[in-house]
């Protein structure tokens, strides 16, 4: 009975040989986004191979294809010398490929052992032998130095331990190729160190690991080789030892095509939004905001650049009232707004283009008109105290649809029926037409068509220059953040690593060094971002 769960070492394939080759992979999503273009990528058995690239570069798509979550439009996957079609994650698992996602797939109230063995439970016939499960997991954990109690409930574990459960799930299924999707993003430095120790141990035991990351120092610490993906294409595979950190940064961060955006020079006025020493830890206890301070002035576009997950999202939510920071304060036009609700913050002249337009930006089943008035629930222009005036709301909707070129049959169409670009225009129209003092534009043009992108850029520039609107532009699109911003903040691991008063003087190579944490300005230099004493 026991042999079925005793771990078999993956030693039927020689170390150093090419265990996986993905060649000519092309993937176009339904909405026309070209996520992978002729990607070539191979991994040798027994190595830790990094895949590096910015968010949106196409790493995730490539891994989804490898793990059977997505099917490539073109290209071939060759695993252990045989061409394979991986139509589902189940097939990938059968082949011996395992994946640890950033978001764990665990049942919290079950024990560690139950989570690991489910689907391949030890026991005779229909019976499940808890004891054998504990033993098997314990043995597996001991072998690879995982300090974990098989009997504890998953909900009582730290994030780091939960990740170990995920890795053990893979090992229990005899996978020999393990994909780790940004595994250190959720870990403390100590946990990261522990993880690296275990990964090296796995490597010694003949496992092959694909390590997705954008953290250069981590990759340099444990990986053997790396493949860089940028804008959906591979930029080559390198021996880690042959590249310096700067080289990696240059390869990773960059624009292929520079799209110039013309804009008149900014004439910044008084400060309207100030953040001082914002601090926040997420529900897992990871530090997401680590003392963020800056000032935003009338008539300027202040960009926020950074690799995704560096705290931009939390910054946006803290400023807009969607979360309460643990420390620090936010001021809008001299008034403290820390801890106020989104409605209260908006009432003071704040608008917010949310990064997630389908979940937060619109209510899909509701008409365009009703989506357009969501931030005007109390507006006296739209009717009396208790009732909306139907004529006035329709007139407003008609006006905004025309002004913001929202392509629709009538404004009574449900917003969810529009294309991505038009949905985004609905959001932009709603947020900008109230003529806010401060506009937070978080990823305002992500994943939409070129026409809509240009339109939104024009509107942002016009409102900031002509109406003096202060724009805080958070974007992971390098071209956007460099071309649109007057000045720029760079975030890294929850703090501001650089402030550039004049973006036109900044090269993308230089920016890359700050984004990837290779350079950081001094306290004194960062003080430049503060124009006013609070």
């Amino acid at each position: 009975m026991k042999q079925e769960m005793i771990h078999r070492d993956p030693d039927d394939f020689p170390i150093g040989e090419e265990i996986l080759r993905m060649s000519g992979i092309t993937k176009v999503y339904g909405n026309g986004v070209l996520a992978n273009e002729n990607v070539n990528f191979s991994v040798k058995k027994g190595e830790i191979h990094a895949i590096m690239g910015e968010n949106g570069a196409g790493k995730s798509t490539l891994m989804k294809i490898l793990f059977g979550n997505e099917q490539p439009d073109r290209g071939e996957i060759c695993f252990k010398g045989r061409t394979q079609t991986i139509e589902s994650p189940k097939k990938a698992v059968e082949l011996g490929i395992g994946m640890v996602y950033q978001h764990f797939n665990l049942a919290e109230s079950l024990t560690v052992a139950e989570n690991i063995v489910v689907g391949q439970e030890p026991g005779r016939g229909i019976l499940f032998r808890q004891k054998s499960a504990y033993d098997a997991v314990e043995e597996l954990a001991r072998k690879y130095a995982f300090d974990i109690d098989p009997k504890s409930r998953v909900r009582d574990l730290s994030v780091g331990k939960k990740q170990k459960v995920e890795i053990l799930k893979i090992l229990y299924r005899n996978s020999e190729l393990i994909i780790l999707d940004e595994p250190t993003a959720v870990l403390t430095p100590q946990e990261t160190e522990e993880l690296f120790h275990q990964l090296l141990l796995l490597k010694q035991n003949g496992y092959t690991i694909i390590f997705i990351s954008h953290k250069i120092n981590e990759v340099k610490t444990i990986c053997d080789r790396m493949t860089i993906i940028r804008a959906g294409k591979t930029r080559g595979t390198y021996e880690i030892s042959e590249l310096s950190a700067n080289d990696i940064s240059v390869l990773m961060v960059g624009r292929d095509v520079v799209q110039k955006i013309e804009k008149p020079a900014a004439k910044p006025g008084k400060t309207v939004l100030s953040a001082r020493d914002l601090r926040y830890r997420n529900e897992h206890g990871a530090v997401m905001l680590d003392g963020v301070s800056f000032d935003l002035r009338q008539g300027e576009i202040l960009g926020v650049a950074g690799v995704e997950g560096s705290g931009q999202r939390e910054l946006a939510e803290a400023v807009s009232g969607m979360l309460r920071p643990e420390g620090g304060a936010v001021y809008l036009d001299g008034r403290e707004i820390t801890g106020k609700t989104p409605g209260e913050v908006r009432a003071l002249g704040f608008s917010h283009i949310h990064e997630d337009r389908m979940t937060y930006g619109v209510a899909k089943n509701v008409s365009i008109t009703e989506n357009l008035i969501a931030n005007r629930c109390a507006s006296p222009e739209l009717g009396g105290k208790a009732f909306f005036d139907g004529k006035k709301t329709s007139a407003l909707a008609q006006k905004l649809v025309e002004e913001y070129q929202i392509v629709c049959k009538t404004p009574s169409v449900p917003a969810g029926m529009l294309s991505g670009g038009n949905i985004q225009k609905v959001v932009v129209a709603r947020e900008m037409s109230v003529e806010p003092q401060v506009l937070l534009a978080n990823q305002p043009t992500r994943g939409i068509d070129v026409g809509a992108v240009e339109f939104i850029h024009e509107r942002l520039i016009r409102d900031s220059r002509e109406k003096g609107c202060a724009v805080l532009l958070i974007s992971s699109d390098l071209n956007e953040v460099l071309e649109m911003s007057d000045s720029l903040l760079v975030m890294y691991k929850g703090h501001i690593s650089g402030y550039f008063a004049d973006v036109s003087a900044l090269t993308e190579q230089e920016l890359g060094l700050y984004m990837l944490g290779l350079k950081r300005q001094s306290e004194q230099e960062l003080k430049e971002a503060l124009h006013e004493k609070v």
Partner: protein
Amino acid sequence: MNVGQLIFSTTFLATVIRMTTPILFAGLAGLIASQAGVMNLAVESIMLTSALAGVLISAWTGSAWIGLLGAVLIGIGMGFIIAYTAFTLHADMVLNGVAFNLMMTGGTMFLMYVATGQKGTSTGVPSKVLPTVSIPLLRDIPYVGEVLSGHNVLTYIAMAFTVLMFYFLFKTKLGLRIRMVGENPAAAESVGINSKKIKYLAMCLSGMFAAFGGAYMSMAYMSWFQNNITAGRGFIGMAASALGGNMPLGTLMASLLFGVADAVANTISSLNLPSELVSMLPYVITIIGLVYYSIYLGRKKAPSAKAGKGAKKEEEKTA
């Protein structure tokens, strides 16, 4: 006789067990569905349908056991149909359950009239009842024997099911998979478990337990079918499993609580005292228990997320 004497009399305690049995079956039906992450509001209507089926089939075949078998098969079938509408046709589980309940409350009356020509009760139908069991040795123990022995065979089956349920959930591969699917279907899918199939199975099991409860009502508790014979016991069973944390032992205890309240209310009203407040008690306790459980879960869930609570809380509540 005063109230105290009544409550400790053997007849009273035996009544408690009689009252508890159908609720326990319904509780097990609610439990297994909840464990798979499904809220089965239709336990009530499955019980009702099976109660009728037991009467009709036993009358036709002349065998109580075949009647029970038929009732159980029909319960499983209904569980399957409800699963089909919910998981394949994607009907909202709550509205779906309500629809089945509304359908079968009248539907059983209609079917009974069509099958037997009787309205209201099936007293004229020669249906069979399931036998009572007198347990050797146990029945000879004074007091205890009178309370525990001599119940209907289904009462002992209910007890056995409760124990078996524990083993099924925690000692079989399928039980583990059901718990996994109930808690996190994505996690189950990630290791190749077909969560839809598991939910179908759980609904069929739920139908089976409900059917036993229905059969108990018409073939043991009473010896005929009557309109709305279950009188909300399906809902009470659901509450019992919720109050019992969807665990076998907890569900048993919660069912006993309802059984005691039922028995007390019966006794008191026979003494011409207002019994409503006693009858109300278990429902109030359920609500309080539910709130307590939610507070406990809420604390457990987010011990570290103190910050950001003010604003984030609103969002979480809606999740």
